Every structure is written in structure tokens, then in C-alpha cells.
């Protein structure tokens, strides 16, 4: 490699050849599947494809219908509320739990498994369990009432105004364990000298976390952020299993709109138009950021 590099221009293509060969799968997946597949869906979003993809172009019809749909507008609002809250709470709860776990507690392995187990269970059924637990007739509300607080009201799944928070409760239950694990790992990677120095300077513990440890964990937060954010954008099962988007369309989300229209309504064009809008939004946020984050820096 060194020799080749020294040889300079002539074998530009062959420089770093092994690396290029090793990257072929990644390049193929990125270009053929993700880029190619995306272009394919974008093209078909301008057609009136129903069950099968067909190239009957109808201009922007699908997009006009999409933005005229009250369900789609509500989906986007819900995703915004759910996304922001889920991001904040996942990070905060995940980090606080990790910080607590990092206090050399007993039964750490047990606690960690308890926090992580929801990640392993299929949401088809755990969604049903949350449906039960949050049901006002026989869930938490009825238990608390039977204990004497008869005025207690907790009905997040059947009240259109707060249903998205009901979804959030179950989402945090499922996802924060993984965040906690990532954070805990990040905490354990912090140099011991930092703590020593902070102690010598008499900085309180919470301040050490906030001002020193968290900034040092930036890479952990970035990896975690990508994992959480991609989960938020794709959220589907969670909603289907708990509310089917209801009551009415109060808890609809964009991924469910895409899926429902592609398959249940057998209207590929409409589904693809919705997914193109989703992807466009993600790309506008991610591409510049990813380029700065991964492209700008030199190694070492």
C-alpha cells in the first residue's frame, strides 16, 4: 500500500484496492438497494399504480391527495410530538438509569436484564398487554380507584387528546433499555482521571456529569441518536398493536399511512408518495449532518 501510494497518480484506481474490494458489498447495498430502491419508489410515486407498480404517470396527483388528507396531517403532527418527546425521554431516562447503574450497585446484571428484556419480546403481544394495563375498565385506573381514589382518571389510550402519550409510555418501556446499555457502556469508557480531577476540584457529582462526562460522551450520543431516531421515523408496530391509529385517527403515524395505503388500500402510488415525503424530510436533516460528521473529519 505504501509503495502504491508513493507511485502516485498512474494507478489512482488501484490505490487502496483491497479496501475498495472489501467495500463492494457496502457500495452495492448503498447504491443499488438504498439509492436505487429509493429512486424507484420516487418514480412510482408519480404514477397511479394500484396493486402492481405501473408507469402511468399522473404528475403530482398523489401528492395533492396526500396533503389534502387529514389523516396524513395528523400523522405528521403526531410524529413530531412523539419524536421530540421520545428522543428527549429516551436519552434522559436511558442516561439516568445508566448513571444509577454505574454506582457499583448490587444485582447489576439483574437490573440490566430487567430494563433490557422488553427489547427482546415481539410487540404484537406486549402491545396487547399495554392495551390492558392502560384500559380504564380493568387496568391501572380501576385498580387505583378500587384502592379508594375514586376520582382517579388515567385513560391515555381512549382519549384522542392524550393518546400519543399512551403510545409513548409503551415506547419508552420498550426502547430505553437499549439506550441505557449504550449509555452505561459509554460511561464505563470515561477515563478514571476525569473523576479524580473533578473530585480534587470539589465539583459536585451532578455537575461533573453535566459539564464533563456528557460532553465527553458525544460519540455515544451520536450512535444512540441514530438508533433512536431511525426507530422513531419507522414507528409502526407499536401503534398498530395498541390503538390501530385510534381513537379515530388520533394516533396515526406516517409509516402506518405508507403501509396501510400500499398494502391494505392497494394504492402503491399513494403509499410511495407518502414514503417519499418522509424520506425527503429525513434526507434534508441527515445528509448535511452525516457529511459533516463522517466526511469532514480526518482520522487520527
Amino acid at each position, binding site marked *: 500500500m505504501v509503495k502504491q501510494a508513493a507511485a502516485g497518480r498512474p494507478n489512482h484506481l488501484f490505490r487502496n484496492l483491497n479496501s475498495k474490494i472489501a467495500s463492494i458489498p457496502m457500495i452495492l447495498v448503498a447504491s443499488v438497494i438504498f439509492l436505487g430502491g429509493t429512486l424507484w419508489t420516487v418514480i412510482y410515486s408519480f404514477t397511479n399504480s*394500484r396493486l402492481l407498480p405501473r408507469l402511468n404517470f399522473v404528475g403530482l396527483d398523489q401528492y395533492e391527495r396526500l396533503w389534502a388528507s387529514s389523516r396524513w396531517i395528523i400523522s405528521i403532527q403526531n410524529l413530531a410530538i412523539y419524536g421530540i418527546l421520545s428522543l428527549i425521554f429516551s436519552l434522559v431516562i436511558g442516561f439516568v438509569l445508566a448513571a444509577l447503574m454505574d454506582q457499583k450497585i448490587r444485582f447489576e446484571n439483574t437490573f440490566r436484564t430487567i430494563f433490557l428484556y422488553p427489547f427482546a419480546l415481539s410487540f404484537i403481544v406486549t402491545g396487547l398487554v399495554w392495551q390492558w394495563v392502560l384500559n380504564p375498565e380493568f387496568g391501572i385506573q380501576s385498580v387505583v380507584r378500587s384502592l379508594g381514589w375514586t376520582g382517579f382518571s388515567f385513560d391515555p389510550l381512549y382519549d384522542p387528546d392524550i393518546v400519543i402519550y399512551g403510545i409513548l409510555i409503551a415506547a419508552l418501556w420498550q426502547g430505553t433499555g437499549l439506550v441505557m446499555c449504550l449509555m452505561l457502556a459509554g460511561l464505563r469508557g470515561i477515563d478514571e482521571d476525569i473523576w479524580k480531577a473533578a473530585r480534587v476540584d470539589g465539583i459536585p457529582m451532578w455537575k461533573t456529569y453535566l459539564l464533563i462526562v456528557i460532553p465527553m460522551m458525544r460519540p455515544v450520543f451520536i450512535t444512540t441518536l441514530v438508533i433512536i431516531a431511525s426507530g422513531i421515523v419507522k414507528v409502526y408496530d407499536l401503534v398498530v398493536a395498541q390503538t390501530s391509529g385510534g381513537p379515530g385517527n388520533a394516533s396515526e403515524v406516517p409509516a402506518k399511512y405508507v403501509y396501510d395505503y400500499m398494502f391494505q388500500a392497494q394504492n402503491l402510488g399513494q403509499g410511495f408518495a407518502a414514503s417519499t415525503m418522509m424520506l425527503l424530510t429525513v434526507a434534508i436533516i441527515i445528509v448535511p449532518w452525516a457529511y459533516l460528521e463522517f466526511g469532514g473529519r480526518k482520522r487520527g
Partner: protein
Amino acid sequence: MDFRAMAAALAATVALPFGLANATDLEVTHWWTSGGEAAAVAELAKAFDATGNKWIDGAIAGAGSTARPIMISRITGGDPMGATQFNHGRQAEELVQEGLMRDLTEVAEKGKWKEVIRPISLLNSCTIDGKIYCAPINIHSWQWLWLSNDAFKAAGVPVPKNWNEFVAAAPALQKAGIQPLALGGQPWQANGLFDTLTISIGGKELYEKVYKDKDEEVAAGPEMAKIFAAADQARQMAKGSNVQDWNQATNMVITGKAGGQIMGDWAQGEFQVAGKTAGTDYSCLPGLGLNQYLTTGGDAFYFPVLKDEAKSKAQDILAETIVDPKVQVAFNLKKGSVPIRGDVDIAAANDCMKKGLDIIAKGNIVTSTDQLLSQDTQKQKEDLMSEFFASASITPEDAQKRFADIIGSAD
């Protein structure tokens, strides 16, 4: 089993001149996975295996949202199964137009399907450009009001005989702390309820003008406004149901927590499993007790075009088997649905099912919205209805306006 396998092996090695005892494997996909459904499939598979072929079962639960996209991916991906279930209606229309489905016209002519299948609309929805592409297997109808006798006893009112009496009894039920109408939160349930109100209150003519002729004016007119007013009443009666699945809602009726539920004839299975008897524990009112019309939805089998000659033959045999009178009786008894032939007799049917059979025998049937409307239109209607039933903020007038728009652009 062993004998057949041996025979197949023999046939393969000896290469008999005639294709006798040549067991062909046929993969069949469907979404019948619950207990009663699985038992019904077993009847069908048994009959097919008896013809010397072998049914390879590909059950995938979850109907439209889960199973159907998988089946369609398989067919369009160029690796189709031997046969697959779809609902009566237009779900496979495009697959047929693409030439991906096998033409069953010969089988149908041989079996005189045009004469035996009743109602004929089932066969019509299998027919595209004069050719028959599917074999109907059963009929389910939506227009049933299930009532809990206990609930009405507790409220001190007689069990209603029709929808209007039910609406009138709602305040008494509420006073007794009973939910008048149980309705699950999934969108298809609100949509089915609305279609039921349309046919049962509005009658056949209105129903067909709106859904068959897609007449936007009628959809926006005063007749339809009555339906929306009724839907508004139903919405108030259903407020506070707080369940998702249809059978959770049925369970409210079974336990007397709710007065009634509008749900298809499959709800009957839940009452049976809970050990309830029709007439004493619960009552069923077809057509909501108002007019005796039932829609005829249900299931049909489609057969993708296969290259393998032997498999294509097996497909024809399966199509014959499905329409066979004996299979029809055995299958539908287990499934709790109605046979697609007029010339078979189900003596073992219970009271509610007999009421349904009578209505169908009289010919009081209308085509279901699944057959009349595209899936796309159905989905838009579902979105509207689930929104309407969940929130009191949409007035019936607004909902009707949006409904008329959907019908106006329907296909």
C-alpha cells in the same frame, strides 16, 4: 400417507405411462388460523388429499394487513404458490389483468358453476372479460345485531326486536351502568357498522345507488343524511367502549357489560365458545331487525399460473374440490359461514345461522362493499368512519360532505 409416498416413488422410478397415483404437492396460502378456521381448512385439505394430491399448508394470520401483501409479493416475485385465498371482490383484479392467474373457465363449465353457485354475484366477481378466475368457497355477512339478554334484563327493558327499539332502550341501559353499543377501535369495524346501517336502515335501493352507481348526489342527499343521523346515534351509544379487537367488544356483550354489538356472523363463534345459547342468553337480529337484507362477502381461492403441468392439473382438481357439495357442507359447518351453493342443506346449523340461510335462500342479498368498491376507496371510507366514530367534533353534516367526496372520486 406412507402408501402414497411409496406409490409416488414407484411412479417416479417405474415411470408408468399414465400419470396414475402421481401425488402432486400444492402449496396453498390462506389466513385461516384460529381454531374453528383451522378445523375448516383441515376439511378442505382432507378432501384434496383424497384426490391423490397433497395440500402443503401455508397459513399466515392477519388478513389484509399482513397476509395479503406477502401473497402478492410471492406472486409478483415470480415464485407463486399453488393456490391462495383472497376475499370476494377486487383484491386480485390486477393480478388477473397481468395474466398471473389461471383461467378456470373449463373447470367451471364442467362443474356447472353458473347454475349451482348462489348468489351468482359471487361468480361475477370471479369473472373478468368473460373468464372465470376464482373459486368461491364461503359467504359471510355483516348485517347482524348481537344482543345480550342479560343486559336488558338488568336494565329492566325487553330485549329489542330491531335497531330502533335498541336505540330507544339505550338510556335505560346507560342508567343501569351498561354500555349500550360495543364497538372496537379498529377502523374496519366502524366502517362495517356504517355500511350495515346504510343497507339496513336505508334499504337496498339507497345502498346500490351510493355504492354501486357511486352517485355523489345521492351520497350527499337527504336519504343518506338519515344514515348519518343514525350513525351519530350509534356513535353516542358506543362512546366509552374502550376496546380494540372486535372479539373484545363481543366479550362485552357476552358478559352483559354491553347491550349489543353490530358485527358479522363470525361473532357467533365467540358466543358458542363461551357456552351461550341463542335465544336464551343472546339474541341475533339479521338486518338489524329492520329489513332482511344480507351482504355476501366471504372468501375465494385464486390459482396463480404455474409452469409445471402436473401442478396445473392439481390446481384444477383443487378448484373442483372447493365447489364440491360435500366439501361445502363440511367446510362451512366448521367455519360458521354459509355455503356458496343453493343445493346443499345444513341441518346442523343453529338458530341464528338458519335465519341467515333463509334470507339468502329468499334471495334477499346485496353485493358487499368489498366487491363494489376498490380497496383504496374502502380504506378512505374506513379512515373517515373511524374518525367520525371516535370524535364528537365532526358533525354528521361534515362527515357526509367528506363521504360524498369519497364516493364522487370512487372507483
